């Protein structure tokens, strides 16, 4: 049936409707005058309009509805015997005289409807009669609408069959039989519509068919609504017959629609109990059927059903729902050899989602699904298809989102294997997803085993994968590595022994990370390890572990190695800072030699690798600051180290830097503790040396720039004098301070600098301070008394 154009169709439809209206008018007149003969004549003529072949299903429907409305009037007339005086039995005979088959059958059905309600004949016979007679119309569209009419007018009677006819099981069976047969015939007609020619004709026909699908599907709805159709009847009769029809029609459009219809129409508990049969049909369907969507929808419904109550859950286990679904999916994938990767993986995603929702505690099920996917992926070349990759990522995300706790996902043995099948880029993206999940949920990974598994999962981030040529943007690389650095702080256990094992694993992987990664990851490892050291400090004796007892010494050895690797990247400034931290930690553990060794490493780095003067100054500050606090060293060792430090200070390039470093060294010789060193002489030596450097700086500035140099240096030194004076350093006298003040005043006057400049302000606040101390009275006041301002 080829149509020539939408315009023509409109014309024919209009003509058809006009025809119906025309005949309906006369029919009404006949009904009003109780003229049965005339009514039949005009109704038959009216129904002839439905004999057209020219309309598409959409338009035919419009025509059909007009006729349908008119037939209702006719039915009411038939019902009322008093109006026409003919018994329904005779009426049934009478309408068969209509000339053409289609009008004849419509009229027959209409009478039949009345006949059934009258209960004057066994329902079974009547229904059988009608459904078979409709066979006379083999034209797909006309036949479908006719049978749809039959279904429609019989519907009410059928669904109430239990109550009406005293619960006679046979009667229910008759009703079911009737619907099933009507359904079968309609499906055959529907399938026959499909044009096998390729190209536009085929597509057009497909579209027309989908417009008609609900006519066929309605039958299933009716079956679902017949009250007395219980689980047994569904299982024994309804489902097998429907599935038979579905499988045998070998039509992909039909199969997809009908499978979906079955799933939507019948209750979930029925599906659960007939799972084997329902799923058994799946591998038998045409390869072009989108079976994954069908199965997904089924699993989706079952998931919701499972959530409705705990008794239901028990049922799932009883019928072995998971196993059956799992097996069906395997079979489908096996049978449909041309199924693309994305199809198979989507099925696994659906199954996993189902498993996580219905059996969240059965991690073995979840792992099984992952395992099946791994097997499938192993038999395929590496994934290049981005859609398939997306599905794999969805598969991996599902357990993370469900459990909100990476630790659970880590127990799925197949999880890392699935990740292995991703291309390097996606693998890293997934690794970042995992890290994000941990950070967001503040998850703590607390055993060495789990840490090992975790690192296996994120291996794309922590080392260069085989064959990976990473053209990664620098910013992206930084973000990646900073994420890993943060992650290290989430690997933690209160128990020192377990924590020691964790540190070892992190150390192992960090070392293997390569020079680009060390500057990001080593600091995190070092500080995590130092935290552990501090905890061990508080404990008596060594913790004896199975293999490696976790002792501060052992940890310092590991740290020494990895910081050395870091310095070789090269990253000497960072390495220097970490060495100093280790030295301080070793000091806290009373390990003099270890601390000394770390200071040695620090100094070696300083001498050989720190060339930039700003970096040198910072390094000096850190060295002096740390060394100043050390009390663990014996006299000789201490002397060696302080000598080195003061030496470096005196050799800084810029004079002001030199001066400041040197006077800072004074603190190395004075510690405010009870047992602390208090070498007044050496303090003074430092300060005097600083003064000389400041003087030299002044002169140099005069010569080079014609202006004076940094007077502020003198004020700083003055403040240092005051500091030690107050602390009670006998070598620093009030006279010396007095002299210094005068020196500064002299320099200030000779300076072309304006009042209110920095040294000026600094001096003023210093003098204010002295004044304040004088006014304190007591010992302090006494000390300051002799200083005149």
């Amino acid at each position, binding site marked *: 049936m080829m149509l020539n154009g939408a315009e023509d169709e409109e014309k024919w439809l209009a003509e058809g409707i006009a025809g119906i209206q025309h005949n309906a008018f006369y029919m009404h007149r006949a009904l009003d005058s109780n003229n049965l003969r005339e009514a039949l004549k005009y109704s038959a003529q009216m129904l002839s309009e439905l004999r057209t072949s020219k309309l598409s299903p959409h338009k035919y429907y419009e025509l059909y509805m007009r006729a349908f409305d008119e037939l209702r009037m006719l039915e009411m007339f038939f019902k009322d015997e008093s109006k026409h005086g003919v018994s329904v039995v005779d009426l049934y005979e009478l309408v068969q005289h209509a000339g053409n088959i289609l009008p004849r059958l419509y009229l027959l059905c209409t009478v039949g409807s009345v006949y059934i309600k009258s209960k004057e004949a066994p329902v079974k016979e009547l229904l059988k009669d009608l459904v078979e007679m409709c066979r006379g119309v083999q034209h797909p569209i006309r036949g479908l609408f006719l049978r749809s009419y039959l279904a429609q007018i019989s519907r009410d009677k059928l669904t109430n069959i239990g109550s009406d006819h005293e619960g006679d099981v046979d009667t229910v069976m008759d009703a079911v039989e009737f619907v099933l047969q009507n359904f079968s015939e309609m499906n055959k007609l529907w399938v026959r519509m499909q044009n096998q020619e390729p190209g536009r004709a085929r597509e057009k026909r497909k579209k027309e068919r989908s417009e008609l699908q609900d006519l066929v599907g309605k039958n299933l709805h009716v079956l679902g609504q017949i009250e007395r159709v219980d689980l047994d009847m569904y299982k024994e009769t309804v489902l097998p017959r429907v599935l038979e029809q579905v499988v045998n029609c070998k039509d992909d459009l039909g199969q997809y629609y009908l499978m979906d219809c079955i799933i939507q129409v019948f209750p979930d508990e029925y599906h659960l109990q007939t799972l084997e049969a329902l799923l058994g049909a799946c591998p038998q369907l045409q390869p072009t059927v989108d079976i994954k969507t069908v199965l997904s929808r089924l699993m989706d419904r079952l998931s919701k059903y499972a959530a409705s109550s705990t008794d239901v859950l028990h049922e799932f286990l009883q019928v072995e729902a998971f196993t059956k679904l799992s097996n069906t999916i395997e079979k489908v994938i096996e049978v449909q050899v041309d199924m693309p990767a994305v199809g198979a993986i989507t099925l696994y995603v659906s199954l996993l989602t189902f498993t996580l929702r219905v059996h969240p505690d059965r991690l073995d099920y979840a792992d099984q699904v992952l395992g099946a996917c791994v097997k499938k992926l192993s038999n395929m070349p590496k994934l290049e298809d981005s859609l398939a990759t997306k599905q794999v990522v969805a598969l991996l995300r599902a357990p993370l989102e469900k459990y909100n706790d990476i630790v659970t996902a880590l127990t799925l043995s197949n999880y890392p294997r699935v990740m292995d099948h991703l291309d390097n880029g996606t693998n890293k993206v997934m690794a970042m997803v995992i890290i994000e999940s941990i950070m967001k949920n503040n998850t703590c990974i607390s055993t060495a085993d789990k840490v090992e598994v975790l690192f296996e999962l994120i291996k794309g981030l922590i080392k260069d994968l085989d064959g990976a040529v990473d053209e990664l943007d620098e910013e992206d690389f930084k973000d990646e590595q900073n994420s890993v650095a*943060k*992650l290290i*702080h989430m690997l933690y256990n209160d128990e020192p022994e377990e924590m020691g094992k964790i540190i070892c694993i992190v150390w192992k992987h960090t070392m293997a990370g390569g020079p680009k990664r060390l500057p990001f990851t080593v*600091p995190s490892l070092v*500080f995590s390890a130092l935290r552990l050291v501090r905890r061990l400090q508080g404990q008596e004796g060594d913790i004896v572990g199975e293999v490696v007892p976790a002792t501060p010494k052992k940890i310092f050895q590991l740290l020494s190695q990895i910081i050395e690797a870091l310095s070789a990247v090269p990253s000497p400034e960072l390495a220097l800072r970490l060495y100093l931290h280790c030295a301080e930690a070793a000091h806290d553990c009373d390990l003099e030699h270890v601390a000394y060794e770390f200071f040695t490493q620090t100094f070696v780095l300083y001498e050989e690798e720190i060339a930039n003067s700003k970096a040198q100054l*910072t390094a000096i*500050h850190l060295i002096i600051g740390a060394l100043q606090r050390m009390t663990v060293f014996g006299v000789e060792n201490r002397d060696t180290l302080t000598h080195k430090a003061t030496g470096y200070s005196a050799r800084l390039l810029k004079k002001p830097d030199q001066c400041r470093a040197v006077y800072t060294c004074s603190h190395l010789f004075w510690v405010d503790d009870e047992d602390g060193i208090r070498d007044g002489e050496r303090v003074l030596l430092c300060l005097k040396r600083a003064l000389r450097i400041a003087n030299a700086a002044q002169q140099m500035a005069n010569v080079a720039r014609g202006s004076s140099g940094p007077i502020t240096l003198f004020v700083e030194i003055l*403040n240092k004098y005051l500091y030690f004076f107050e602390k009670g350093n006998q070598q620093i006298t009030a006279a010396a301070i007095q002299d210094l003040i005068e020196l500064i005043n002299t320099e200030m006057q000779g300076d072309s600098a304006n009042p209110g400049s920095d040294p000026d302000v600094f001096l003023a606040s210093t003098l204010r301070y002295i004044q*304040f101390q004088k006014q304190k009275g007591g010992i302090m006041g006494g000390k300051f008394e002799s200083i005149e301002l």
Partner: protein
Amino acid sequence: MVLVLALGDLHIPHRAADLPPKFKSMLVPGKIQHIICTGNLCIKEVQDYLKTLCPDLHITRGEYDEETRYPETKTLTIGQFKLGLCHGHQVIPWGDLDSLAMLQRQLDVDILVTGHTHQFTAYKHEGGVVINPGSATGAYSSITYDVNPSFVLMDIDGLRVVVYVYELIDGEVKVDKIDFKKTTTTTHSAH
């Protein structure tokens, strides 16, 4: 009423993954007028985050900061107060009040804010106030054992500043406050 957030020594990502969630939920954009940060953020992502809390952000350089161009010291005037900012690893002995007082005299500020020790302190002396906001993440320190995460919020109002210190102790946020009044003379004041 001007609110100034003082914090520092976060050491992200080297020693901590992030600010404690309880702090993060308290630090809401739009409520604070100035942020002063002692340093050791350490990465740009932290600077960006602080910028979202308040656009007037001042940072001094800590020895682990990725950005090496932050200044060693900074001074700014807020209302009647002059504030000074410095990380503090440059001031030796670390954490020593008298040495910090020297820096305060040098910068000529009423309030000096420094860090490095990861230990909250607030001292008043004749020259003004020295505040250490501690470590906002509770990061490891070789100087201080058992560091609790902390930060400081200053409410500057005329000649008065109220210093609120927020500390996370055993999972709970504890708040303490200290009042300081500025006097124009340098005679010893009742504290």
